[in-house]
């Protein structure tokens, strides 16, 4: 390969990059420094509507030890080489394993994949960034521990560290992942290693059980950020309950979303229903196992009459609520009566569990698996809905209030319809908030459609922000735009922290819109 054909990090000369690569090889060994095209190909696949050319790495580094990460950071500072850190790299639709921008060096943490501790008494784990949910799941089963995980929909192939650091969510009572994180080990940009919470106390036994430690609590600084590289993370695991009852509630009218949310809110806040409930729209529920062309062949936004045919043909509702009860059989019977009374009051809801729910159609089996922490990738069926490999998750936050939900649904459908895309959406209900998750599915092999998806996503961000709705997370193509919706004062704080912690700007430049 001639020098002129090389992709280099921004502002780094070929000679400096060669010198840095030589040092990376000294640290990691030649086999763990990737520069060849066939080695880097897996780091270039994206699903978002960006140009492929904007997301090509110049190299990839694969450490296995935290002290190697410290040494890498020292070299990066010396040569001003920017690195983009990934763990399992399965943040699909958010950027996958690709760099934030062309030329960055990927720091691939997947080979740091040790499960350092699982404590079945206090129900905690301490793991490295490369550990997958499947790996931890297998380990727990092998040991015979009665502990549950809380995977997001990509479950098996994703991992707890990366998902938690991007503030992802799952579907059990431990669904808000950062809430159930406890203790980190972080390599800072200056090469120092810090342990958060109680981890600063040598031989502390409480690193994974007490989150706050002493003084300012800093774990949040290392989520959705570029202030450090997390090399170990603690998390809490849910003890397997004596009994579990997943259930399904179907509503048939689009306007019913208001009633669903207003009935659900007190049940969630009071923890009668303790898990991260989902309220799934027809097209998401169908899309996990049906392709669009079965019901509609047009390229515009799918019309109402087709949605009604899907509901009829697949036995699913306009809104499909998947939730679960956990506890002793007696507790579940008590809480089930409360749920039945609450949702049964208006006469609109079809409430079911067990065989009736399983036979109803839709996605009950895989939802029941996710709500008990089992590994399941059925949700990837959404990628077949329209085909072509394009997917972007638009995920504004709302209050758990019916009026607000209706406002967001109407606005999203209006903008998606304008650009010819489908409202493939669900609401994930936290305690008082909801993540309104819309999968903007498009054919990435069609350049016109890809540009249209890009424009649609940009308009969604702006129009939602105008009404006071911000995103909880976004993909690398739109991080700058989303950061802008949160205002300059907050951005100035982020920049001040960046300059203090990473003065050379070597760690994941552009993550969440944060740069020097």
């Amino acid at each position, binding site marked *: 390969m001639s020098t002129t054909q090389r992709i280099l990090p921004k502002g780094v000369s070929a000679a400096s990059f060669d010198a840095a690569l030589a040092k990376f090889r000294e640290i990691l060994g030649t086999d763990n420094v990737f520069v060849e095209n066939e080695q880097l190909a897996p780091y270039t696949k994206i699903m978002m509507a960006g*140009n492929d050319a904007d997301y090509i790495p110049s190299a990839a580094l*694969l450490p296995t030890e935290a002290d190697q990460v410290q040494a890498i950071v020292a070299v990066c500072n010396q040569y001003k080489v920017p690195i983009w850190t990934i763990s*399992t790299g399965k943040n699909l639709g958010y950027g996958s394993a690709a760099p934030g921008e062309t030329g960055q060096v990927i720091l691939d943490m997947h080979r740091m994949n040790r499960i350092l501790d699982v404590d079945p008494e206090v129900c905690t784990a301490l793991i490295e960034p490369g550990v997958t949910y499947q790996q931890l799941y297998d380990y727990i089963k092998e040991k015979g521990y009665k502990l549950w995980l809380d995977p997001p929909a990509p479950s098996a*192939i994703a991992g707890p560290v990366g998902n938690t650091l991007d503030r992802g969510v799952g579907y059990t009572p431990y669904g808000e992942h950062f809430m159930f994180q406890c203790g980190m080990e972080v390599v800072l940009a200056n090469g120092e290693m810090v342990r958060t919470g109680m981890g600063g106390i040598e031989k502390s036994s409480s690193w994974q059980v007490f989150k706050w430690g002493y003084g300012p609590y800093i774990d949040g600084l290392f989520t959705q950020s570029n202030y450090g590289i997390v090399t170990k993370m603690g998390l809490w695991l849910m003890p397997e309950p004596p009994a579990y009852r997943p259930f399904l509630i179907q509503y048939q009218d689009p306007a019913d979303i208001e009633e669903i949310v207003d009935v659900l809110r007190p049940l969630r806040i009071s923890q009668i229903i303790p898990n991260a409930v989902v309220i799934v729209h027809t097209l998401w529920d169908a899309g996990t196992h049906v392709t669009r062309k079965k019901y509609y062949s047009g390229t515009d936004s799918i019309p109402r009459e087709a949605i009604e045919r899907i509901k009829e043909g697949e036995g699913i509702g306009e809104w499909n609520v998947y939730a679960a009860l956990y506890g002793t059989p007696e507790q579940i019977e008590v809480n089930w009566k409360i749920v039945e009374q609450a949702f049964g009051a208006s006469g609109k809801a079809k409430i079911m569990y067990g065989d009736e729910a399983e036979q109803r159609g839709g996605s009950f089996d895989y939802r029941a698996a996710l709500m008990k922490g089992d590994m*399941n990738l059925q949700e990837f069926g959404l990628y077949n809905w329209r085909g072509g*490999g394009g997917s972007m998750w638009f995920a504004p936050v709302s209050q758990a209030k019916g009026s607000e939900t209706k406002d967001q649904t109407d606005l999203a459908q209006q903008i998606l319809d304008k650009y010819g895309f489908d409202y493939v959406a669900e609401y994930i209900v936290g305690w008082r908030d909801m993540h309104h998750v819309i999968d903007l599915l498009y054919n990435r092999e069609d350049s016109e459609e890809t540009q249209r998806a890009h424009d649609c996503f940009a308009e969604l961000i702006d129009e939602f922000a105008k009404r006071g709705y911000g995103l909880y997370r976004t993909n690398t*193509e739109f991080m700058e735009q989303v950061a802008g919706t949160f205002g300059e004062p907050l951005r100035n704080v982020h920049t001040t922290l960046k300059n203090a912690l990473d003065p050379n700007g070597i760690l994941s430049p552009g993550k969440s819109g944060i740069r020097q």
Partner: protein
Amino acid sequence: MHNTTIEKSTLGQRLAALSLAALSTVLATATLAADRAREPAEVYRQVCAHCHNLDKAVGPQITMPFPEAAWEARGDYIHTTVREGRAAMPSLRNAKISDTELEGLIDALLRGELADTAAGKE
């Protein structure tokens, strides 16, 4: 969409090379942190089965045996698809499935050795 300052010709060559390079079946030594390469059935269970098992049908069936005459072409196709991804299929890099593991997986798939696993018979 934001732009970079890379020359177009350079980008085109890199992208073309990425596509062609993955057709190569040159396999390097496994370098996973794990102390052993996983058996093909274990790789299939941990990574592939969740989408490709017959009862999942998120991805196409991939475990039917292929005629020996087509092994090279089919093997190259699987290799390219695993490493680069394809539409809904994510790319799976060396750190997730090592080159040695991928070589074993492809061999087992071509021979139909994982067909019973995919059908839930094992």
